[in-house]
């Protein structure tokens, strides 16, 4: 209740332009922060400069002596910034290359100059050359319930090499461009022991953590530029010679970004209540239908299986080649995809990127996790849903590539990336994003998580998995859940649907997959058909309990092994010559397990996890064994390769 009253109070006292228009009748989030920004884009100097008024509400139960602001454009200032050091790249040597943000003035509501009270800090790595986090000591500590107002005049220079943000020629993608509050976390929030600011530096492998905010933004720019943003267009007015001012508003989103380029073609479409705008170069007009189909499929699937998309607007951008560095990023109601002027129909790369980036509207946008500290909750969960959506709409086995000669599912890509990585065990998923060893962040945060979420779905079932996410959405949308909150939801939903079938809770699963570094690998190490000397009256010692038939003179023994550290319950399916098939459940705990069968004749084959639901298993080949392996596909592949090479050589030889 306390949290709801304060924003309402803030809404009354905040300057009028801040809340002059309302998109959602009822605020979706607590709106702890809000911004009113008025800037001008200087297309020659490559700067964005203007004023900002912003507020932050102290929702905690203690006085807070300071505020912290992200000044992320300073990451592009020099090669000594934390981003520069982590990437090993310089912003460039020309004057126009670096990016930076300069605060010309910073005042509080009483007009106190806050500039002398501010200093750059580096809470993550103590890098004295990094100036991406600004601490401002307040003249008077903010008491519980207080709203801190700041008023700033700032200038942002965009970097020349677009890495999510910057310019290239006349192309501008403007993100991380204004001073933005960190998140103040009271004790207990996200299981933290003590209250404090959560405001990390800009790292190469991390993106955002921010409060849901309201944005009133005015941008003045040349008339010939087409502008796209995460806000709703409120007004467009003339601003003098060849200039226009675009007024925008966005509510309950965690970041506000925008793009401007004269070459954009604008396309619109609608899905239920959502007005969708797509900006892309004219040369990519062929991609328009594909892009809209992708985003509408994602809207439909996530609405059905997770929760509704609450905003009435959505803009996405397929940047031109010169702005490719801006592709594949998410700003909730604005995201960027990627494609090319000519993209084969069978290659669903644009669809994959579009579905993925849109999915972040849920996983990080609404369910506003801390991507710095728990990147698996953002990229991992989102990649899991991306794979499900892509494979659902574009083919279970051909979601990513649907060529007549080659088909690849999206979920296969994730599994291969994880299972074949030599670094799959060097770190767990429970790491801050910048602490991942070199080259492991993507594989761990995106792909390993996708694989173990699929494995979880294989164990608890698809409908239960959907219910987990629906409940997660119901409990945590427009809040800041932590990993433990998600696990609690899983435990609650699984217990509700399956009782204690999987034990008192599912913590055993997360301890091994999320917090552990072990691998999962089950193996059939062999099976024997032992001819019995005479018919006996032995009972079957299997769960099947089938009586021994007269013509069954074999004792069949299956030998199973657990090669990896991860212990998961698996199904074992045994097939006999007489057509009998016996499914068994193995808890997967022992390193070695024998199953013995009487009364079914000779065993033909045995499979562990016959439906390949345990996608964490790093080797499906050793999951089964047969006395009559099917060599036909191998021979066929060899023959095709022979023919292909013959024709290829013939074509090369005039």
């Amino acid at each position: 209740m306390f949290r709801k009253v304060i924003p309402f109070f803030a809404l009354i006292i905040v300057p009028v332009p801040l809340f002059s228009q309302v998109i959602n009748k009822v605020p979706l989030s607590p709106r702890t922060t809000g911004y009113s920004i008025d800037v001008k884009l200087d297309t020659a100097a490559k700067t964005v400069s203007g004023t900002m008024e912003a507020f932050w509400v102290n929702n905690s139960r203690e006085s807070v002596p300071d505020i912290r602001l992200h000044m992320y454009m300073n990451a592009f200032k020099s090669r000594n910034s934390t981003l520069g050091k982590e990437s090993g790249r310089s912003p460039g040597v020309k004057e126009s290359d670096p990016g930076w943000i300069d605060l010309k003035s910073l005042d509080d509501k009483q007009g106190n100059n806050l500039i002398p009270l501010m200093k750059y800090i580096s809470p993550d790595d103590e890098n004295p050359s990094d100036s991406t986090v600004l601490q401002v000591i307040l003249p008077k500590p903010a008491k519980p319930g207080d709203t801190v107002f700041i008023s700033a005049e700032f200038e942002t220079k965009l970097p020349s090499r677009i890495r999510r943000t910057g310019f290239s020629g006349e192309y501008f993608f403007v993100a991380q461009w204004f001073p933005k509050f960190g998140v103040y976390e009271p004790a207990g929030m996200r299981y933290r022991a003590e209250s404090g600011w959560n405001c990390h530096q800009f790292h190469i492998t991390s993106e955002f953590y921010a409060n849901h905010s309201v944005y009133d933004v005015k941008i003045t720019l040349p008339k010939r530029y087409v502008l796209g943003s995460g806000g709703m267009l409120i007004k467009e007015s003339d601003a003098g010679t060849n200039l226009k001012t675009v007024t925008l508003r966005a509510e309950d989103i965690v970041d506000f970004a925008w793009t401007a380029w004269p070459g954009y073609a604008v396309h619109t479409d609608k899905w239920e209540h959502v007005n969708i705008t797509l900006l892309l170069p004219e040369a990519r007009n062929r991609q328009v239908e594909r892009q809209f189909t992708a985003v509408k499929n994602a809207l439909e699937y996530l609405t059905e299986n997770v929760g509704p998309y609450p905003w009435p607007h959505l803009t996405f951008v397929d940047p031109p080649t010169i702005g490719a560095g801006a592709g594949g990023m998410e700003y909730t109601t604005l995201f960027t995809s990627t494609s090319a002027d000519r993209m084969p129909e069978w290659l669903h790369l644009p669809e994959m990127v579009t579905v993925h980036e849109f999915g972040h509207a849920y996983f990080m946008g609404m369910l506003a996790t801390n991507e710095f500290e728990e990147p698996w909750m953002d990229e991992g969960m989102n990649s899991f849903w991306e794979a499900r959506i892509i494979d659902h709409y574009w083919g279970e086995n051909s979601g990513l590539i649907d060529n007549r000669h080659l088909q690849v599912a999206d979920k296969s890509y994730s599994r291969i990336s994880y299972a074949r990585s030599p670094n799959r065990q060097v770190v767990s998923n429970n790491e801050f994003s910048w602490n991942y060893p070199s080259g492991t962040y993507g594989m761990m945060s995106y792909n390993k998580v996708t694989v173990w979420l699929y494995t979880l779905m294989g164990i608890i079932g698809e409908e239960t998995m959907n219910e987990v996410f629906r409940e997660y959405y119901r409990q945590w949308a427009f809040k800041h859940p932590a990993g433990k909150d998600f696990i609690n939801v899983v435990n609650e939903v699984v217990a509700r649907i399956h009782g204690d079938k999987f034990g008192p809770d599912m913590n055993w699963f997360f301890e091994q997959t999320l917090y552990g570094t072990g691998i999962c690998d089950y193996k059939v190490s062999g099976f024997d058909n032992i001819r019995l000397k005479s018919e006996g009256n032995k009972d079957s010692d299997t769960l099947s309990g089938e009586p021994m038939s007269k013509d069954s003179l074999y004792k069949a023994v299956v030998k199973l092994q657990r090669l990896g550290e991860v212990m998961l319950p698996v199904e074992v399916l045994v097939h006999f010559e007489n057509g009998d098939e016996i499914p068994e459940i193995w808890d997967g705990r022992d390193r070695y397990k024998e199953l013995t069968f009487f009364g079914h004749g000779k065993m033909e084959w045995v499979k562990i996890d016959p439906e390949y639901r345990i996608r964490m298993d790093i080797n499906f080949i050793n999951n089964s064994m047969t006395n009559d392996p099917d060599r036909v596909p191998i021979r066929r592949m060899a023959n095709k390769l022979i023919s292909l090479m013959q024709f290829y050589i013939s074509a090369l030889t005039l």
Partner: protein
Amino acid sequence: MKIFKSLGSGARLALRSWKAILIVWFVMLLLVSLFVLPAKSIMRTGFGSSTITELLRSGINVDVLSDLERYLASILSYLSSGLFLLLMLGILLYSLFAGGLFKSVSNLSQVLSVPCYFRASAKYFWYFLGLWFFVIIMILLSGLLIIGLPVGLISQAENPSPDVLQVVAIIAGLLYLGLLIIFTLVADYARAWLIAAEKPALFKAMGFGFNETFKRFGSSFPMMVLILIIILIFSWMASTIIGLWKPTTGGGVFLFFIISQMLFFVKILLKTWRYGSVTSMMELNNPMTG
């Protein structure tokens, strides 16, 4: 009329050279099999007694293949390193046997015996190899200049117009296609001349090739267009059959092998038809050649 006469004559000559074609087919099968069969064997070992190969029945399954791990690494490393060697050997062998094929489609000779075929192959090997080298260089360079350069320049523009890009790409593509046909004609005339010449010489042959191509452009070019269209249609049909046919039984795979090899035999036959037609055209135009 000259075109159809040459085409008809080329077809008769090609059919008459079936033994030579059989030799080319067999040697190429042997060469490629020697390259592919070890990879197949590694794959068999990798899959062992697993039932997982059932997932490969409907085609390539990357999930399954990736699980071959070190076996897959071995296969890929073997194929990638062996591919260059295979291509080199293929080019050398083709250059070798093309001499015999051209000799056997030459009207000056009667049905060529197998020893004569090999003798001719050996005699013209270095000339044909050199010719292949120069023509391939010309094809690659012209591709770079005619397609790569203009398309690359236009796509570097900040916001290239799709219409301009498309028009330029189509024009450059057509131009390049025309040049490919011309280079093929040059190569074929040059080789036909080498066979007919008393004193073969590489650069003289190339000069003759260019001269003959442009001197008889009105008849040579449409004839080559017709031949290449037929060969292209056949190759497309053959690759479609080979690519899409997924036999699931042992018998089916054997039938697939027979059919695919028959298709390749026909492919060499069509190529020989091209050699024969160009040779006939040259002989019609230059009765005293050689």
